[in-house]
């Protein structure tokens, strides 16, 4: 591994860690605007995380070590994911160790631990949230895998940097299969990031929560890590979407530092547009009844399979 590749890896990890709360802030700001409300500060997520880090943690008496380590595992898993998703350049030496299937595994690992931690305390809401989370998760993961397989079939590799290299740096071609996959990916992302119409990140109704119900018992640094990890997850999903569907502008390799730095404005623009679209979807839809989630994610899976079939039939 060259020093340049190492630096590129480090830069992209740093960008993900630092920009993730900003993206979350941007989405809430867009949401507020679209609802004719005055928006909270763009920097509010940073302030929240900072506030939580300096508070004293309160942990339930009957909490087992799982409850204590879960935030670190979740945060760690999201950092690892960020290290294998290209945001600025495809020069990611770490990505050789883990492909897209491992990426889905990392998300699953985080999910399992947060659900275990939720059940660990034994409160009614924790178990309720954990149960719903696994319910949504087992429907969303196959659809996500299918989307990633479609992209892998096109580029002949399951490694994200290779996918980006082959999609971004060849002659412009229209892939009908990617259109199907794009819709499926959007639906999966909404479900996986606890967004309307599957979950409501802004709710205070404990009986309707999914993600929020699982983290009700967390406070201070633990909660800060979970909030940060949630922001990172949204950032990772956005970057996966960008990498597969609009990879143009991402630098190839880690040698051309002008191109890597030049990719930054493109990334910012794409994230801003993506965040706005997310806020728009959330404003326009109502939260669906939880038993509509199988239909919703079933549709996503179907579209992802269609994408793959289209690719196999058309050969593009």
């Amino acid at each position, binding site marked *: 591994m060259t020093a340049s590749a190492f630096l590129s890896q480090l830069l992209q990890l740093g960008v993900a860690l630092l920009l993730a709360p900003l993206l979350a802030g941007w989405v809430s700001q867009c949401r507020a605007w679209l*609802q004719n409300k005055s928006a909270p500060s763009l920097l509010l997520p940073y302030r929240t995380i900072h506030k939580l880090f300096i508070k004293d943690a309160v942990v339930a008496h009957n909490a087992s070590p799982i409850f204590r380590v879960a935030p670190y595992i979740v945060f760690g898993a999201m950092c690892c994911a960020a290290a294998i998703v290209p945001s600025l350049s495809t020069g990611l030496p770490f990505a050789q160790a883990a492909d897209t299937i491992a990426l889905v595994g990392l998300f699953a690992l985080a999910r399992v631990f947060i659900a275990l931690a939720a059940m660990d305390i034994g409160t009614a809401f924790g178990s309720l949230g954990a149960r719903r989370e696994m319910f949504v998760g087992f429907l969303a993961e196959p659809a996500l895998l299918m989307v990633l397989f479609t992209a892998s079939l096109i580029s002949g590799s399951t490694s994200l940097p290779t996918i980006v290299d082959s999609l971004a740096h060849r002659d412009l071609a229209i892939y009908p299969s990617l259109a199907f996959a794009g819709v499926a990916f959007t639906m999966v992302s909404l479900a996986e990031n606890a967004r309307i119409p599957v979950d409501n990140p*802004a709710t205070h109704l404990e009986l309707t929560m999914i993600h929020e119900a699982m983290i009700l018992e967390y406070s201070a640094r633990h909660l800060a890590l979970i909030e940060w990890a949630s922001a990172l997850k949204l950032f990772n999903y956005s970057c996966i979407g960008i990498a597969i569907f609009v990879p143009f502008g991402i630098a190839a390799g880690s040698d051309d530092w002008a191109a890597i730095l030049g990719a930054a404005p493109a990334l910012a623009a794409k994230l801003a547009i993506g965040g706005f679209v997310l806020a728009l979807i959330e404003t326009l839809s109502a939260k669906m009844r939880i038993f509509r989630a199988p239909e919703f994610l079933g549709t996503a899976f179907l579209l992802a399979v269609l994408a793959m079939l289209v690719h196999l039939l058309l050969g593009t």
Partner: protein
Amino acid sequence: MNVAPLGLAAAPLPGTLPAQRVPVGAGQLLTACHLARERGGRLAALWASDERDLARGFLLRVALQDADGLTVLELTLPDAEARYPDVAAIFPAANRMQRAAFDLVGVAADADDQRPWLWLASWPIDRFPLQRDFEASPKWAPGQEEYTFVRVAGDGVHEIPVGPVHAGIIEPGHFRFQIVGEKVLRLEERLGYVHKGIEKRFEALGVADGARLAGRVSGDSTVAYAWAYAQAAEAVAGVTPPPRAAWLRALALERERIANHLGDLGYLGNDGGFAFGLAQFSRLKEELLRANHAALGHRMLMDWIVPGGVARDLDPEHGRAMAAEARRLAREVQVLRGIYDEHAGLQDRFRNCGRVPTDRARQLGLCGMPARASGIAHDLRCDLPEAPYDLLQVRRAGQTGGDVAARVAVRFDELLESLRLVTVILEAMPDGPVATPWSPPSRAGYALGAVEGWRGPVLVALDCAAGGGIRRCHPQDPSWSNWPVLEHAVIGDIVPDFPLINKSFNLSYSGHDL
């Protein structure tokens, strides 16, 4: 209700409200209740008072409402040990009222369910706050309360306790769910966490001061309570408020209805995950409340209705502004109604959710706004119209679906009707004084006041002592009848739909816990 066939003698109560009192014996109490039930009447209220200082033991009062008006059955109990027959077998809503009557006064029904209702161990269990010798001042150390919830047994059944402290800023109440998966098998409520001793406090006040307290029984219905109280106080004193005051009171009551429906429609959207609705309806509600403040001095119109009339007149300039506002609001509400009605996701949440079919509603005694969504078109403004409603010809809302969608539709219908009424009232309101000089009644007397608030019929029973003091005042919120129906509305629905169903009723905690 004509009680002559039962061999009972009725004495009319003072005031314009068609109401009568009927002394009954224990057996006659049940016969009279049966008769009312057969005639389609409902249990309006049940309460007790300590009359031992007048050597009359305890007095149990049961207020029934039917098409002819209100009938108060009065049963004298010689002492606290004497049990009265269980009315809950005829009117299920009586169950909690009877338990509350025991907690506060110490007279029990001859019923199986003897669990406390308003008692939460904040005073000793063998003391009863509404007995005349109970001292309100001592501080009691909080005790331990054990409440037996009904549990459902079976494979995969588990229990979720919710509240009384909630994740959002709402009033406290405890809800015990028995669920399998996400499906609700049973819900049991436990209320009483905001018991403030309002009835005890009334007894220390004069009739004039009581008006302020009555306006604070449930803040969102302050106009309805203040009007019902003023009605009763004026009836005892034999005073009739001037015509303009009655019209102004109706204006306030309709504006209260508009404000609450606006707020709740916003929250109904929000609980369905449609935050856009909340932002829009909150904006409209806020404009209305600010107009209230500018024109009449208080956002919620608290303390504006006083016995004898209203506290200050509405000047013509604000009147014109209110009329223009009502027309503009009606346009905006129509647009928002279109958005709600055509939003597939929102309608999917509203439809078939929290259904109360008509027969179930009738059986359980559902009243007010949710009853009108379940095919029971009772509305005091039409059924027993007081001035000026006798001239206004209110179009009563009516839906038969009984689900959240029907309650949303009733709210929209009533909201638009109230906006129409506001413009009619502002046009047709007569000129003249807004208050009749009023002094507290010097002789003892007893009267009822009943007003159709936005939630449903609000009843105030006022018993005045000689000399202008309050002997006993019992305010009855429609929530007493509707809380038990909520338990039935959620059966078979899924847990995440409960907040939406609950909000579609939006019952009062404060008005219920007293």
